[in-house]
């Protein structure tokens, strides 16, 4: 058996995903500090997101209700779409990749773009998030249809962002210079106070498309380069949060 850890480390010095106001600052306070403990967001680092993260699907399964065999030792097929910095993965690229994808029914899909192997998650600055390749809406619709057809409800990827929130979130947040910190900075709190459900619907159209197809997503994998599609299983290990809708998680690949 060969095991590979595909998880972004939770680094108390610096996290590469703390760029947008929707992210929460991760920190560990020292033991004699009043805040002693572990403070993290539900999507800190490598994370699992359920459809129930969205209000429209809040009646669907929560973290504590997910059957263990949907996440642990799940047979997985790799869907390869090499993508450059900032690249939009288009419908035609997705179609080509899906045509070559021999996914047995029920397998999870691991969309490997190479972004998690470039080391940008180790670099200072916002490039890991702001230069991530991402899916266009037509590509996501095609992927969702393919996964529904293959009874596959778990999508893993090395993308830092799956969709591209460029309708409101990115232009409005990026207009603030220097860029403020993530939640709970004052600016992030103010931003989210004015960030309506309608804006979120526009920004997260790709994620909503996947959620509508009842697909759980795991993003921000690293070190996927060496994985082979044959006899690959993944372990997705989130925190076991009662009524949770997303969680930082540990992801391990098991190759026989």
């Amino acid at each position, binding site marked *: *058996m060969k*095991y*590979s*850890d595909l*998880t972004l*480390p*939770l*680094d*108390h*010095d610096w996290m590469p995903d703390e760029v947008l106001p*929707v992210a*929460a600052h991760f920190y*560990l306070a*020292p*033991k*004699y500090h*009043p*805040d*002693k*403990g*572990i*403070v*993290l*967001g*539900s*999507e800190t*680092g490598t994370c699992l997101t359920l459809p129930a*993260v969205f*209000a*429209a699907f*809040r009646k669907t399964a929560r973290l*504590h209700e997910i059957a*263990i065999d949907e996440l*642990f*030792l799940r047979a997985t097929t790799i869907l390869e779409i090499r993508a450059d910095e900032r690249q939009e993965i288009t419908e035609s690229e997705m179609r080509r990749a899906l045509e070559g994808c021999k996914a047995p029914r029920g397998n999870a899909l691991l969309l490997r773009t190479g972004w998690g192997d470039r080391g940008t998650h180790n670099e200072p600055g916002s490039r890991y998030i702001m230069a991530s390749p991402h899916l266009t809406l037509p590509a996501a619709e095609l992927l969702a249809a393919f996964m529904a057809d293959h009874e596959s409800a778990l999508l893993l990827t090395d993308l830092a962002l799956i969709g591209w929130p460029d309708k409101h979130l990115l232009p409005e947040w990026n207009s603030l210079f220097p860029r403020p910190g993530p*939640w*709970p900075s004052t600016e992030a*709190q103010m931003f*989210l*106070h004015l*960030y*309506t*459900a*309608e804006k*979120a619907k526009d920004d*997260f159209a790709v994620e909503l498309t996947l959620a509508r197809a009842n697909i759980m997503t795991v993003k921000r994998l690293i070190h996927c380069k060496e994985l082979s599609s044959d006899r690959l299983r993944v*372990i997705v*290990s*989130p*925190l*076991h*949060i*009662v009524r*949770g*809708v*997303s969680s*930082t998680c*540990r992801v*391990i690949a*098991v190759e026989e």
Partner: protein
Amino acid sequence: MKLIDLTMPVWPGAGYGEILPFTNTPVEFVEYMDYAKNGLRQTCMKLNGETGSPLMVAAQHAPFDMTPIQKNPRFTWTLDEIPLQELVLHDTAVLDIPATEGHEITVDEMAAALKAADFRKGDHVLLRSGWGSLERAYEMGIDYLKKSPSVHYDAAALLAEKMEQLDSKMFMTDCALVNPPRVQGYNWFLGDAPIIPLPKPWPSAEARERLMDMGGSYAYAHTSREPSSYGALIRKSIACGKCLINCMQITKKRVEMIILPLKIKKGGASSCRFVAVE
């Protein structure tokens, strides 16, 4: 292949976050994006190293204090340094010692259980008392920990010795506390002068006062004069896990364990997922 989830869930206000003055802090959630206003939910969570079913290495207070809680530990890895071979599908012997409310597992019971178990070289150990159940944890609140069965020091010392002999590197249990509550909670919730009503954990005024009484350090977190059962075990282990549930669903004497803590850089303890594979 049968998978059994042995993980205590995480929820705000859980008893395991309320019981001890220093090693616990309350579990708190803040919904900073919510369905009604933002159309989606994002949560900021305050946890600690012993939330849910935790996994703890000898340097439990790492990364800020790398001092192990017992001197000269056999292993000095932090959470992110534990080799995956120790965490994924590792052979594990189930050590059966049924124990009811408040029972301290004795050295004779431990010796008998070791004799009956199919404990092989290199195995991890899962001590099953039968206490760990979600229904019980929900129902009892902090009493789930106060009244938990536990391991007497002599029994822990015997097990630790056997673990070293067999090159066993990980200890897990469904007891909510490894140390007897009278030791762990000495003069906090039990002992000669328990504090009534029970104060909140750190950073409550009472916890800060207790720290003053302890000379400003809680490197060795309980004030009882009795030796630490947990200390005997962690000294010989890569890490220890406690507060597991559902262990009675295991039907075999040996299982493979998946043990996945958060990948905290140089971390000393974290909430962890424990899954048995039969």
